[in-house]
């Protein structure tokens, strides 16, 4: 999972329109996949650090909790219904949003497009 996230980090930091969309987004997001914690630290839209957990001391604004199978199905080029969106994962019981959801909603396009960057890898495979 760390490799996938590092690939997404490189893609984000090379995608001008996402950096523009995320220019006010300076937050840490926790991604929890099958219980494994990853802390994604964004600075003005740039993903500057990925830290593996577990950690009880790292503050984060919100968390996306899911499992690796769901995430890989989300990253398919044409995901099945429900796996096509992070709120879809929530709707079908394969994901959960925790924490400050309003901050997520205010930056929803940015965060959704960041999460979807994993689809580029699936397209290339």
């Amino acid at each position: 999972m760390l490799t996938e996230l590092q690939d997404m980090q490189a893609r984000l930091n090379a995608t001008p329109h996402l950096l523009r969309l995320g220019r006010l987004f300076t937050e840490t997001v926790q991604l929890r996949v099958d219980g494994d914690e990853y802390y994604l630290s964004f600075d003005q839209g740039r993903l500057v650090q990925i830290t593996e957990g577990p950690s009880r001391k790292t503050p984060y604004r919100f968390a996306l909790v899911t499992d690796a199978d769901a995430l890989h199905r989300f990253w398919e080029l044409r995901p099945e219904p429900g796996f096509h969106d992070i709120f879809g994962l929530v709707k079908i019981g394969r994901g959960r949003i925790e924490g400050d959801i309003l901050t997520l909603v205010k930056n929803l396009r940015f965060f959704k497009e960041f999460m979807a960057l994993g689809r580029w890898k699936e397209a290339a495979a």
Partner: protein
Amino acid sequence: MSIEPITGRYVTVTVGDAPRRIYFEEAGQGTPVLCLHTAGADTRQWRHLMNDAEITATHRLIAFDMPWHGKSLPPEGFETQEYLLTTEAYIDTVLAVIDALELDRPVLAGCSMGGRIALQLAALHPDRFGGFIAIEASDFQPAWYDIDWFHRPDAHGGEMGAALVSANISPYAPEAERWATLWMFMQSGPGVFRGDLSFYTQDDSLIGRLDRIDTGRTPVHLIVGAYDLTCTPEDAQRTAAAIPGATIAVMDELGHFPMSEHPEGFRPFFADALERMATHSARAD
């Protein structure tokens, strides 16, 4: 150069006791089909079907922007009002447009909240219509989000609304159409999407009215996309099952805004729905 066959005009109607200046578009000749847009959007959602020469050869498609939406201004004094759509105001507006345009028992095609009101009209005013095409429509949908997110002084409700509803667009939708569909939400006036959602997510009065719908008199056909998270196929199937004689089609590769997000994918389903309306009408004659 190509000039599209769609024409747009304005009509002023009275809803409640106040005038409403309403923008409407139309194309084609034949059986009138009144098309209703979704929450937070406008008539442009129907642009592809209104430009479809085969469909408009036998059907007159008419679509209008609800007050507060698109090119229909909000009523005078809106600056101090909280916009909250109600079933009653929505019904009154649709009937007022039908009267003003002198439409004779049009087919009513509505999507999302437009589909919900189509089913309300099927229950309450069936004599005014030739049939109902309820797209992404169900008896009731409680919100899986906080509708107040979309009207706040510290954030752009339109951009947040677009980001949310993108969850309802199919990955099969062409990118250009996906973003044209989302643009309408981005352009939506402050508080308008929230006011539409207030109607859509809080008024459950249709549930108790479904059994009044007489599909022997006026046909009801539901269409739902598999990628619709808001009105899922299960929601639409539950609704169709509660209306004796209603028919339903599930679109495997479409979402909540099929006529706008993926016009080619939606076209055969809409043509089939129109055919069902015509067949019923011919039988009744």
